[in-house]
């Protein structure tokens, strides 16, 4: 009988199991209990940051499915988030529909548009795809501004307060549970999707599309499916964003937002769900880190006091993209995996 140690798997099922070892389950339970009791001991700002992270995590996972798993560069992600957010805003404030219809409709609306964009984009690759999706993003932004009868144009639009079963979620603490549950559902859904035939087909298309087709993967169907699912998830993230912010404006959904999401999945790690979570949380925290750092610098050099502004965050996103691509192409997830392996294998190197 072999002694089970390190990476020891006897079947494919063991290899793709969600929770590989008993320890991972234990840690997951501890993590979830900590998260669930957070409103009892965390301070409001932390809760607000986690709410924001939840929304970003959902959207980043959606983008990673398309870019990281299927290998289709998309600069239209902000457009899908915007479509979701505006659908929620219009349905909730003008038609007064309950939250679950709004969220599903946001996802559905985005998915329909995503499918419609995916079909003409089938023929395009690399640079061409980046430009086509980018111009789609610009067009959507212009439509949001120009079609002011429906979207409120540059005045923006209010989103009705969300209430679940007649119970209003009016504070960050109450929203926290709602966002956490939706995020958990999305993570579980996508995590399960990528370990099925569909997920493997996506990865095959990314690695070598011609080879994938030869192996019997229907490229047309799977590419359109990737676009549709990715934009569905983005639409849901848009709905969550609308409910959390209570007010949305075309300026929230510029091409810069798409780039920010690409930054997240690059920093986190392309083609992994865990990477998208790392990246999203990291990018949400970057402004805080920069603020803390600039306060520290101002403490050392008084002349720098008051030099901080939003601009530095965006500069940091750009710099992070460049540095991660040059020095750590696997992203935070790669670093995490290396640390994990070296602990697991200690004292041996391999």
């Amino acid at each position, binding site marked *: 009988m072999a002694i089970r140690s390190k990476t020891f798997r006897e079947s494919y099922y063991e290899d793709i199991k969600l929770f590989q070892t008993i320890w991972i389950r234990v840690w997951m339970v501890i993590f979830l209990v900590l998260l669930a009791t957070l409103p009892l001991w965390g301070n409001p700002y932390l809760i607000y940051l986690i709410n924001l992270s939840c929304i970003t995590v959902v959207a980043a996972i959606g983008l990673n499915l398309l*870019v990281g798993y299927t290998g289709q560069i998309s600069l239209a992600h902000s457009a899908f988030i915007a479509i979701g957010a505006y659908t929620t805003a219009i349905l909730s404030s003008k038609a007064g529909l309950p939250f679950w219809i709004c969220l599903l409709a946001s996802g559905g609306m985005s998915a329909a548009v995503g499918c419609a964009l995916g079909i003409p984009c089938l023929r395009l690759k690399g*640079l061409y795809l980046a430009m086509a999706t980018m111009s789609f993003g610009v067009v959507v932004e212009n439509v949001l501004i120009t079609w002011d009868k429906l979207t409120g144009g540059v005045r923006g639009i209010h989103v009705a307060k969300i209430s679940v079963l007649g119970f209003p979620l009016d504070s960050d603490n109450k929203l926290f549970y709602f966002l956490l549950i939706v995020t958990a559902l999305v993570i579980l859904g996508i995590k399960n999707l990528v370990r099925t035939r569909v997920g493997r087909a996506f990865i095959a298309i990314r690695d070598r599309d*011609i080879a994938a087709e030869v192996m019997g993967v229907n490229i047309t169907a799977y590419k359109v499916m990737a676009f549709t699912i990715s934009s569905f998830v983005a639409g849901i993230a848009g709905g969550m964003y609308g409910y959390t912010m209570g007010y949305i404006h075309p300026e929230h959904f510029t091409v810069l937002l798409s780039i920010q999401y690409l930054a997240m999945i690059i920093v986190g790690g392309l083609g992994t769900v865990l990477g998208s979570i790392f990246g999203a949380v990291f990018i949400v925290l970057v402004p805080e880190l920069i603020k803390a750092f600039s306060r520290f610098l101002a403490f050392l050099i008084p002349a720098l006091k008051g030099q901080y502004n939003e601009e530095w965050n965006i500069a940091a996103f750009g710099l992070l993209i460049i540095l991660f691509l*040059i020095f750590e192409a696997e992203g935070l997830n790669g670093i995490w995996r290396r640390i994990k392996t070296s602990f697991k294998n200690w004292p041996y190197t391999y």
Partner: protein
Amino acid sequence: MEKGLSYFIQVFASGIAVGCLYALIALGFVLIIKATDILNFAHGEIIMISALLCYFLMAKFHFSFLTAALVTVMIAALLGVLTERFVLRPMLGEPVFAVVMITIGLSIFLRSMAGITFGHDNYVFPTPFPKEPVHVAGVTLSMTQIWVMICTAILVAIFFIFFKYSRMGLAMRGTANDQETALLMGISTKRIFAMVWGIAFVTAAVAGIFLANTMIVNIGLTFVAISAFPAIILGGLESVPGAIIGGLAIGVMENLVGGYLDPVIGGGVKDVTPFVILFLILMVKPYGLFGKKEIERV
């Protein structure tokens, strides 16, 4: 909607002037794509930075227009060489996606650095050209528009001669055609790449200086480069004549649509037109008018 022939010619002529700017910007994109297969998303930032730099040199340091323009162009060339050395060279041999992303990262980095250095205010460029419009054969054009056309024509002619007859130009064309063969022929591709980035940034700087003359100078100028995407797609990504024809065509179409449809539908159509055109071209003829066709069959 009967406005007659003179209105058409007027709209057409100002379309050509706008198209010249698009052509200049597209030229910068195409030079880099041709030699290195990289679409430089940071091109718009160079245009914006050059415009702001030229403005600040004139307004704050009281340079004359010509010296300011010359200094700007030189700084842009230096920036291009540095960009190639420190950002793009480590990425040699990486997948397209990574290279595209790194130029996007560079673009937002440069944009926010420009925001920090130059501020977000709107500036009015002290244009050196006379304000009175000129009437040529019934068409009214501003002096700036005429100078844009003249300068574009001169630059294009210089490029044509450079690529056709000079040693460096030949080396560049060779590298674009086949990197390994060029290396075997004793061409230093590293130096060629650095040169190409320098030259492309110079065209961006020239475009930026002219844009500063026609528009309000602020951080938003970067958007103009995105508007030039349709031009390079229409012309085909790797074709220099394609970039110029594409630029002119997009400029004219945009102005015609703006001139005839805007009063009917009401504002906003003009800004979206290039992108709708881009989308249509990608659907019908993805490799543009003069682009290299990559045939792929399974």
